[in-house]
């Protein structure tokens, strides 16, 4: 059937812009304005790209978390998983199995993605087939992944030994394409992919359906277990992507790697307007949420108003304020 593109009926359901969908962006703009007032250096190109690059890990992981949470799940293991994958990746780089350097680095990346997907698959299958609460499952795997890394590192840290490899791989974090750092491109790419999956594909709609009401999904012939498991696999891939740009930054992994990332990522997701109990997901809101958290930390470093040791407290306050604001908006409708 040939149908002119513009011929879609006028009544085609358009996603309605709700206040809660726009709020994270307004908040981000407001915070950036405050940052500019507090310190003119805040708006410098270097500082802004630095902030963006630093937010890559949380933003990338949080996109995966958005899918998991929208599907009615939760993944607490992402920080530990990042540490575990970092350790394995560095061990592989150190193994000298491949002589060709670009090939070695690319293989390490592929390995990271494969391990990430497998870790996610394990989380997914245990919650769906094993029928255990995702909170419990991922609390368990969080301990397992972190402990595996500590064991691999024998309590210390794992570092890229070969200085040539280190120098070559460094480009992945510090390099840029037409002035745009690679990590920023990664955020963009992951967000576009996440938004595409969630909003434009049948799978994305199934994710929302499963998170919104599992029974309705089941009675509609949707395989709840399959849909949910895949969200965890996608989460694992997002963690692996974050690791791929994280490893070249410090060239090392230790028991402290990725500590607390799960909570920061969940904060970004919730601040971004995604509903914690599932059914409603905002990918771009999540990106805004991750940026809000990073920008606030940055402003606190640049200005001397509040001690930077209080960053955690401020981030904690943000999540509560964000929830109160959402509650207020939905109540006033």
């Amino acid at each position, binding site marked *: 059937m040939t149908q002119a593109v513009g011929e879609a009926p006028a009544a085609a359901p358009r996603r309605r812009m709700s206040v809660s969908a726009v709020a994270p962006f307004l908040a981000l703009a407001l915070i950036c304005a405050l940052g500019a007032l507090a310190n003119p250096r805040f708006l410098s190109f270097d500082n802004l790209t630095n902030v963006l690059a630093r937010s890559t890990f949380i933003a990338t992981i949080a996109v995966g978390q958005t899918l998991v949470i929208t599907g009615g799940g939760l993944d607490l293991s992402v920080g530990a998983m990042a540490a575990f994958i970092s350790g394995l990746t560095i061990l592989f780089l150190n193994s000298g199995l491949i002589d060709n350097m670009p090939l070695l680095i690319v293989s390490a990346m592929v390995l990271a993605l494969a391990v990430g997907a497998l870790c996610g698959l394990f989380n997914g299958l245990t919650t769906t087939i094993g029928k255990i609460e995702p909170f419990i499952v991922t609390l368990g795997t969080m301990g397992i992944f972190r402990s595996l890394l500590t064991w691999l590192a024998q309590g210390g840290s794992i570092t890229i030994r070969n200085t040539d490899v280190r120098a070559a791989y460094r480009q992945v974090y510090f390099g840029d394409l037409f002035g745009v750092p690679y990590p920023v491109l990664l955020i963009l790419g992951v967000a576009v992919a996440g938004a595409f999956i969630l909003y434009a*594909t*049948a799978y994305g709609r199934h994710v*929302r*359906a499963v998170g919104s009401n599992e029974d*309705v999904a089941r009675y*509609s012939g*949707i395989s709840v277990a399959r849909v949910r498991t895949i969200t965890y696999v996608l989460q694992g891939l997002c963690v692996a992507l974050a690791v791929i740009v994280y490893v070249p930054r410090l060239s090392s992994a230790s028991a402290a790697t990725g500590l607390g990332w799960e909570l920061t990522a969940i904060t970004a997701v919730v601040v971004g307007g995604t509903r914690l109990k599932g059914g409603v997901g905002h990918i771009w809101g999540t990106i805004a949420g991750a940026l809000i958290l990073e920008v606030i930390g940055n402003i606190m470093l640049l200005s001397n108003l509040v001690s930077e040791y209080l960053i955690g407290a401020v981030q904690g306050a943000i999540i509560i304020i964000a929830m109160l604001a959402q509650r207020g908006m939905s109540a006033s409708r």
Partner: protein
Amino acid sequence: MSEAGEKKRAGAGPDGPVLEAVGLSRSFGPIEVLSDVSVSVRAGEVHAIIGENGAGKSTLMKILAGHLAPTRGAIKLDGSPVELKGPVDAERRGVVLVHQEIMLAPDLSIAENMFLGRELRRGLTVDDREMNRRATEAMRVFGVEAAVTAPVQRLSIAQRQLAQIARALAVPHRIAIFDEPTASLTPVETSALLGLIRELKAKGVAVLYISHRLEEVKAVADVVTVLRDGKQVATKPAAELEPVDMARLMVGRDLLALYPPRPPAPAGEPAFEVGRFGAAGFAEDASFSVRPGEILGFAGLVGAGRTELFEALFGLRKGGGDIRLNGAEQQWRDARAGMRAGAVYLTEDRKSKGLLLEETIAVNLTLASLDKFQRGPLIDRAREARALDEAIQRFDIRVGDRTLLAGQMSGGNQQKLLLAKMMQLDPRVVVIDEPTRGIDIGAKQQIYRFIAALAAEGRSVIVISSEMAELIGICHRIIVMRNGRVVGEVAGEEMNEHAIVVLATGVSTNGEDVRT
């Protein structure tokens, strides 16, 4: 509005109204959902309020029970105006409301729910023994012998409804308001409830009663008020109104026959055959078959295992047995498998299993058939919009605004949407569970026509219903289940309420036990 004002001038004598509402109106934003309604009820009187969905019945009841404040008008108790400050205030004054929606904590027991917020105490602890005893007694009135210590979530919907009624009536009261209490009850439980209402009446309680079921209204009410579009159309003694008059007043036009002409009973080979099928713990050894173009009814009491049997058939709960579709053996591990083979099940529980209440009509319409709406990895939104146009047209889904969420639609429109959603799959076998529960008479009439049309198109249709009248009205044959087993089948001349009740209860109407 002509006959409306007669009763309200009666004043407050010893025989005057206990509860009187004068000129009540209520608006939500610019929309007036109730305008200038006056009703009154005396001690020992049952006043029924009837009307289609959206006529304003529930709004009126909520105002009388203190859940909503009226925009205009006054409420008088014993002749003096009062301002109800909330449901607690209303209860304190002796007005209790039995809600239409079930509002019980699923993890707490019947007894715990019944006394929630007003637990009996013995010293520092709650007096569970006494509460359980009273709860057991209250449930026995309805003929329910369920353990009152079991969590409410293990009860059937009907049992939950009864527990909710018992909970409301456990509060001291002189005015009881029932908001569609029988929507999910079978005839046996309904007659137990009507018996209870007569008892309340004899005790001098004033009863306000909302129902869709006009026969029931005729049987129990003294006075009937008809609402239409928020306005009071008539208030008359029940003795002067036959159900058909009530229906005419509710709809505002003469209703053609409620049931469509039955398509001719088909002959030929069965399309769908089920042999010795069981649903773990709920049904066993069920065998039946349906021909193309045939409408087969499933009757039985709530708890007879009808819903569970079909849920097990469609892989939605545990069970097993033989299924054949057009001669080919089938085994469905999930609903998707049934759909692929050409069979669909429409749940009785529209709101929590049928539709995503927070999503739009279009999303719901295509949810079960999204792969048909894909272009590459993308959802083809233009095609989806066209499917919505067609569905709205074919099933007469009445929505002004297509961005409306499913949860904002009336029950009738939700049922039409659920039907439209499953028909996207173009199934050969359609199982519809409680197709008209909680929907108004106009929408019911339409649903019956849709069902007849599905059969006329050569599909095999199975209708599970607790309303015997509708099964008799639309089906070619009716299978009756009792305690998880198929106990009989009626067709043709034998298809009457008496025959079905005898099979469903195992007791003939003169009390003789006919169980075999």
